[in-house]
């Protein structure tokens, strides 16, 4: 197992961010990196550690975003309560999806998760009386920590850093604990794991439920930070793919990987859009092409993810097939 020093360096750098940098644009980037990293890490619990490739995690993200936004705007409830409600709902749906995972394997499970997020999208965009439908919900700004109304971006950095650190620790637990070893066995070969006394089904369901709850927490904080919930964004397949892409790019089934992947995607996307987004009609969208090319090149040269690639090139040791 890899050491934790790269993670310590990563989180220390993020913590130093607000002290060194005052620029709002850069701080915004840092907050998004940590939020997308935490979301990808939450996905990684099910997709990486439990081996259940979900393409519908936006469903849980959206549940978190909507729960807090609706409770806040309709009944004036604190987003912290909304966060817990969203996590609770996501856990319940996570259990359902978990039971599905015991029936459907591989690509069929992936398809079922997409369908699941699409159903929630339809509910959110059509149930006008309750969700405001496709118009979405603006989250009103009410100053104070209890209402998550912080004008100072530095406070947000530390808040999402806390979330990111929690997600990192959850993954570290899955790397080193008894349950983690058992889950790895289930991912590798479910029947063999069963034959060794591992309660494979229960573990898978639990992992998916935990992953769902944590994704919902990310969704709540994201919506409160951005200040707007759009059903076509929070329940989109694009978003589900983003979680999974960040984890795979960084290193699936590793605790730091999702954060590195999210950093790459967010920096690339934001900087390319800022650089190419505004210029003449002929080049509109060129940033998407560059974005795509960089992702393809990354996967070509670091198929095991960035973390593994760094490990290989900085320490010059083979990662697979021989003793560490």
């Amino acid at each position: 197992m890899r050491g934790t020093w790269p993670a310590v360096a990563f989180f220390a750098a993020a913590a130093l961010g607000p002290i060194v940098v005052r620029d709002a644009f850069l701080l915004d980037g840092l907050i998004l990196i940590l939020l997308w990293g935490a979301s990808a890490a939450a996905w990684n619990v099910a997709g990486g550690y439990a081996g259940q490739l979900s393409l519908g995690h936006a469903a849980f993200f959206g549940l978190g975003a909507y729960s807090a936004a609706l409770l806040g705007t309709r009944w004036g409830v604190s987003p912290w309560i909304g966060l817990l409600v969203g996590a609770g709902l996501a856990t319940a749906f996570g259990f359902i999806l978990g039971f599905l995972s015991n029936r459907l394997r591989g690509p069929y499970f992936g398809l079922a998760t997409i369908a699941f997020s699409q159903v929630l999208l339809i509910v959110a965009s059509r149930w006008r009386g309750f969700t405001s439908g496709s118009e979405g919900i603006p989250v009103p700004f009410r100053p104070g920590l209890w209402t998550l109304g912080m004008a100072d971006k530095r406070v947000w950095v530390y808040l999402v850093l806390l979330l990111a650190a929690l997600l990192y620790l959850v993954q570290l637990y899955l790397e080193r604990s008894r349950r983690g070893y058992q889950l790895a066995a289930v991912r590798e070969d479910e029947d063999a794991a069963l034959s060794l006394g591992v309660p494979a089904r229960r573990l898978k369901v639990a992992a998916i439920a935990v992953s769902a709850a944590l994704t919902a927490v990310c969704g709540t904080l994201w919506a409160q930070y951005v200040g707007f919930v759009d059903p076509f964004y929070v329940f989109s397949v694009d978003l589900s793919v983003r979680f999974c892409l960040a984890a795979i790019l960084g290193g699936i089934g590793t605790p730091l990987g999702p954060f590195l992947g999210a950093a790459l995607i967010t920096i690339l996307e934001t900087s390319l859009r800022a650089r190419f987004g505004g210029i003449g009609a002929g080049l509109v969208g060129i940033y998407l092409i560059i974005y795509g090319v960089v992702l393809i090149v990354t996967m070509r040269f670091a198929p095991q993810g960035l973390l593994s690639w760094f490990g290989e090139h900085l320490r010059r040791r083979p990662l697979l097939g021989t003793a560490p």
Partner: protein
Amino acid sequence: MSLLSVAGITKRFGGITANRDVSFDVASGELVGIIGPNGSGKSTLFEIISGFYRPDAGEVRLDGGSLTGLSPDRVCRLGVARTFQKLRPFAGLTVVDNVMVGALTRTHDVRHARARARDLLDRVGLAEKADAHARTLSTGQRKRLELARALATEPRVLLLDEVTGGVDQRSIPGLVQLVRDLHRGGLTLLVIEHNMRVITAVAQRIVALYLGEKIADGTPDAVTRDRRVVDAYLGQAYTQ
């Protein structure tokens, strides 16, 4: 007193009856062999005992308690471990991690499980491979790994599906010796084996299956001379 008891097991797949009313007992500390031609229902029987298949009729009992209908992980925790005919190592994990998964069924302490896994690897002769990835092992080494992994769950009965199948000639004596040592240590074993020289040398009793039915049950000597066993499986040449 029998430790494992198979009583009237019948299993059908569509029109095919894989096991028909199979019954036998395994006493504590006994090593029983199961022989029979391909398709005679040996592996199906193992799948039933270990909880992967549910029988259409009959019951499997361990020390008097019924195992029928329990999930495979429950069966293992109650004390019946197995290996697979088609080996199933956790290819992406290291050898020691593979064995730890078994050990963690009996202990919650990861460090303790690792120590135990290393002990067991030592016992099956894989100590120097402990930190290699399981996918790098040869077939013979994988058999040893499966054995160590199953032993780590501290079974009362161990089901071995083909100890020597697919292994090169030179590795066979070592594996056979390993099974002998386990038996001598007091473990109860039920062993499927095609190699007649091996099974007659290690087993105290042999159960012969043919077309899903038990056709003989007795000492290796008696079973290998049994008329029906010779006709169905061994062939005339074997007796000469």
